[in-house]
């Protein structure tokens, strides 16, 4: 039992980190970044490319995350901003992000090929035994990083001016300008953090998952599910949603058969949207119309 719980929590942290970026973007700009899965994939492919270029693993992982963060800012400047500021509607923004993800996948296949690539681990060695259950070292690191990110996020959102600005943006886009908070600063910041988190998740699990261009869409779906499960209006929701999704999948596969794992993920999305669109941690009063 403990084994299933730990496995679920470990993978849940990966989902949580991805979902966090998703929720932050949604909170800051009311926009669903369907290219977010591609950021995760770029993290893994970036770590592979850096290691192949001779960069030590210890530098390649943060390096890849930083590159993805920077890339996300470029995407914001060139693509997303006009949609968010132009009020083009959520659907067009989703479609434009799908187009962007398609380009990223295409370029990745052209550059690195369609095959999976192995990436050396930041923490090589066998899994660590904890009370009869075993956990891979990579996932332990991810758990620790998730905890750090959670603490940093708390500090950032609650205590700093930038965090307040981010939350204000989410509450009322048109009003933000009036209060002297510049969307053109907040949005790139949020995109940078989102890209960084997705990139670091991708780079860290690359030794376990193996880096491959097609890993983008499955993780997009997991991140979406986790964010919706926890509640899009709340960054804590994304982390909690990720952990819950990981555990649900772990036990769901155990009792329901492992081929249905994806169906479980989709069912989580559908049930949450229909029964409780504000998510587990969302405020009941929020009208998602």
């Amino acid at each position, binding site marked *: 039992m403990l084994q299933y719980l730990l496995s679920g929590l470990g993978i849940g942290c990966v989902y949580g980190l991805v979902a966090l970026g998703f929720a932050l973007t949604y909170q800051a700009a009311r926009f*669903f970044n369907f290219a977010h899965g591609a950021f995760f994939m770029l993290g893994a492919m970036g770590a592979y490319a850096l290691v192949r270029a001779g960069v030590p693993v210890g530098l390649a992982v943060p390096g890849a995350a930083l590159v993805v963060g920077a890339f996300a800012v470029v995407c914001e400047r060139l*693509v997303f901003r*006009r949609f968010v500021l132009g009020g*083009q*509607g*959520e*659907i*067009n923004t*989703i*479609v*434009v992000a*799908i*187009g*962007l*993800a*398609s*380009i*990223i*996948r*295409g*370029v990745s*296949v*052209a550059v690195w090929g369609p095959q999976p690539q192995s990436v050396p681990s930041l923490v090589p060695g066998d899994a660590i035994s904890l009370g009869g259950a075993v956990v891979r070292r990579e996932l332990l690191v991810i758990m620790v990083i998730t905890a750090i990110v959670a603490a940093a996020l708390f500090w950032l959102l609650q205590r700093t001016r930038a965090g307040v600005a981010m939350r204000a943006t989410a509450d009322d886009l048109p009003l933000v300008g009036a209060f002297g908070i510049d969307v053109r600063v907040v949005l790139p910041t949020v995109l940078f953090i989102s890209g960084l988190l997705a990139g670091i998740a991708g780079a860290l699990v690359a030794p376990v998952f193996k880096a491959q261009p097609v890993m983008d*869409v499955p993780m997009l*779906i997991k991140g*979406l599910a986790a964010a*919706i499960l926890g509640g899009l209006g709340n960054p804590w929701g994304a982390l909690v949603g990720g952990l819950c999704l990981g555990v649900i999948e772990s036990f769901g596969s155990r009792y329901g058969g492992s*081929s*249905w794992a*994806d*169906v479980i*993920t*989709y*069912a989580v*999305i*559908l049930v949450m*949207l*229909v029964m409780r*669109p504000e998510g587990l941690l969302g405020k009941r009063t929020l009208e*998602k*119309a």
Partner: protein
Amino acid sequence: MRGALVLRGALGAAAVAVALLVPAIVEATAANPPYLQQVIDLIAIFAIATLSLTLLSGVAGQLSLGQGAFMAIGAYGTSLLAVRYHWPLGLAALAACALCAVTGVLVGVPALRLRGAYLVMATLAFAGITYGAILNWTEFTGGPQGIQGIPAPAPFGTPLITERDFYYLILAALALALAIVTVVRRGHRGLRMRALRNDELAAMAVGVRPAYERTAAFAISAALAGLAGALLSMFVGYISPDLFTIDQSVQILTMALLGGMTSVLGAIVGAAGVQTLAELLREFSEYQLIAYGAAIMIVVILVPDGIVGGLRRALARLRKGAT
């Protein structure tokens, strides 16, 4: 006003004539007629699937990423009934469309309170569940091995085997779909206009009808997508879950946005655009993903109301300039 009507009639008649003559034109001009006809047939099938979205957005102002799932239900319903239970093909297709309509209601009712991106994601999840079900429920659906040997329809006794024969069947279905969408949209707009004139009616329309109308729109839309799926299964003669992945739903949404949803013509233009792009980029493998993504982005950025919408605005501006 009358002049415009006459012009419209003439244009419509010309369009019908051209549509009927397409196979002859293809036969006479193309280097490889079966291939070109195949692409045109597929464009028409996907135009029907895209029209199902045009209808949904026109009535309910909503979009769905689940049309691929309704296509799957239409295709699997038709194929299973025809191949395994030996139903006559026409009846099987009809029953499959009805099943889609029922599923449409089942999805539409809980989705009533969802809007915009939330609805998109709920329908995406529905598409994921449907795909997982047909993939994993192997005893019933054949699983990943799919269903082989779906018979060709034989409306006049002889089975339609060539792409050319099939074209007329698809064309008839497309005409039916166009008619349904036009009528529903007109009816809906008419109702709103009447509601504006009369307060009582307006209250009724706002109080009771919207839920009913949106659910009905979901049902009809699902049935249309199912019709496209049924046609696809008969046309290809083989179906497997790979035909109905999330990508398929994304592609249908792309077609709708590319063509534009302000007019029924947009569905045809969008389906033609996406299919043509796919064929043109065929030999470029990974670059087609890049070009496909770029095409989507360019259209959404430059003409957010689609090609037909953009053309209309351009025409309107031209006309203004002329007078």
